[in-house]
């Protein structure tokens, strides 16, 4: 009945709205529902709860605590390891991608693509084992280096230290760089280097005026993605450190597990929100640059 009344009241508008809704949204409903319920809702709730005190009243205190010790050091370390592992991997990764894409045959490129895909996703316990076996106190490489007179463990080095973690992170950061930077190399047209040579540019001039300016945005974008990946890595850090290195993902994990107790119940949520903000600062520009340079890549 009510439906009829509504339809009589505004027959065309009501129907038009319904029709346009069906046309524009209904087929996307399953996707929107799943993404809404399993993704947007938890994120929204995370943000909401991060502003709640233990008594469920509105507060900024979670965020205030999140910026104090030891969480402050956690953020600094996480940002540092993201920046450093990204920066160290970016340049060699870009060079490797360049040689592989421009000099390699199609079989080699495919093989590298497969291997990079696997390696960029290694992490956690398996990765920790690999590095214990190679660079641990009893590791193969450690022994070899010691034989040549370089005792890795003479100082304070350990795989669970900042430096150790940094080296381990490179294991997935380098292949990740190869993966995300290769499309930019492929999009460099041969016509551009040939046109430049034809117009009187030597190799150096071509790279300075054309090649590097064209690759630079993608390089920065790739670096940003690497930063986000190093910044938020959890499994590997969890497997290698034993609470000796403050990193935000580990601190959040500890609060979530209940292994670490805090007087503020919702502190972990605030840390999560800050992580999202920092990650967004890197990933959103990455996506924007990718979209922009897609214009040339047509």
């Amino acid at each position, binding site marked *: 009945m009510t439906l009829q009344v509504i339809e009589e009241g505004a027959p065309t508008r009501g129907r038009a709205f319904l029709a346009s809704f069906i046309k524009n949204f209904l087929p996307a409903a399953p996707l929107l529902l799943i993404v809404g319920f399993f993704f947007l809702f938890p994120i929204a709730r995370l943000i909401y709860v991060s502003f709640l005190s233990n008594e469920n009243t509105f507060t900024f205190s979670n965020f205030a605590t999140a910026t104090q010790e030891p969480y402050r050091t956690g953020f600094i370390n996480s940002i540092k390891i993201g920046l450093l592992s990204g920066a160290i991997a970016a340049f060699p990764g870009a060079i490797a991608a360049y040689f592989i894409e421009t000099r390699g045959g199609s079989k080699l490129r495919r093989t590298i693509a497969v291997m990079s895909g696997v390696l960029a996703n290694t992490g956690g316990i398996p990765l920790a084992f690999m590095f214990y076996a190679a660079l641990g106190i009893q590791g193969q490489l450690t022994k070899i280096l010691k034989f040549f007179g370089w005792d890795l463990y003479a100082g304070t080095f350990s795989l669970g230290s900042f430096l150790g973690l940094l080296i381990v992170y490179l294991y997935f950061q380098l292949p990740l760089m190869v993966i995300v930077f290769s499309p930019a190399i492929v999009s460099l*047209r041969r*016509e*551009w280097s*040939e*046109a*430049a*040579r*034809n*117009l*009187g*540019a*030597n190799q150096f*001039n071509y790279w300075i*005026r*054309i090649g590097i*300016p*064209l690759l630079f945005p993608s390089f920065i974008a790739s670096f940003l993605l690497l930063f986000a990946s190093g910044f938020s890595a959890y499994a590997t850090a969890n497997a290698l450190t034993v609470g000796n290195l403050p990193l935000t993902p580990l601190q959040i994990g500890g609060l979530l597990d209940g292994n670490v107790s805090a007087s503020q119940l919702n502190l972990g949520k605030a840390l999560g929100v800050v992580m999202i903000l920092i990650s967004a600062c890197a990933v959103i520009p990455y996506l924007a640059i990718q979209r922009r340079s897609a*214009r*040339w890549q047509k």
Partner: protein
Amino acid sequence: MSSKSLTLNNISKRFGNVTALDNFNLEVGVGELVALLGPSGCGKTTALRVVAGLEHQDNGTVLVAEKNISDVPAHKRNMGMVFQAYSLFPNLTVEENVAFGLQMRKVNKSVRLKKAHQLLDLVGLDSQSKRFTHQLSGGQQQRVALARALAFEPEILLLDEPLSALDAQVRVNLREEIRRLQLSLGTTTLFVTHDQEEAMAISDRVGVMNQGVLEQIDTPDALYNKPTSSFVAGFVGTMNRIPAQISDGMVEIFGSKVVVLKRGNESGQVVALIRPESISVVANSSQPNAKVLTRSFMGASSNIICQTGDGTIVQSLMTSASTGDLHPGSSVQLRVLSPEVLVANV
């Protein structure tokens, strides 16, 4: 003018097992526009790239104004090249693209920008000079590429199928513009294309290539009317291939004897090569030797397709006024209009 002549001597180039150029020879005079025409894979683009220095020949020499430049690297050759498409630098504006060659030659900024604007004006795009190249249409991009290739006053202009990625109408306009510019600047030009109409329309001479060899190079007129090989005859324009018997330097076609134009080693059974416009179709004849299959009206002229008694399909091009009595199915008499014909072995 800075324009120079271009000579290629015995150039050979192989890619793996494929011979792209096989003892290739070519001369282009000062200020001349020569087109290289041929099916894809015939080596025409390789020839152009060897001239530009983008490929290095296995054997032979490239001379510019009698000077051997075979081992001069591409960036020191002073040749302007227009590529098929997508060769403009996407990170530079239109005027920066055009000024690039002068920048590489260390010409100071105000001079090179002035020159760039001059060239852009010539191709009608001065108003677009501050835009980025992806904001231009395909035809505009190729105009910019042309301006860029000419801005540093190259000794030779190289065109590598510059029109092939464009729409038909733009293609016709731009080719006229290329010719106009080339004539006014007097730049020696080598133009590679697979489109014979394009080659014929704007070139001083056209070289027809096949399998890495220059089959014939001549004015468009001569190429069309006096092809020296059956490949050229077949490739340039439309050609009827009519089986005939050769005897005493004559062939008999449609019941009348015709002189064989050029005799090589052809003998016995051959095919006579005859242009459609050299065949006339006569209606209401007392000695019909063919039937009309179709007649297509094309304005001033009409295309008549006939079939002779022995099954050969013959195409004739006649003024439309004289085809009024020709209808599909009508019996007609075919006649050869030219007194001489070219023949090829079967």
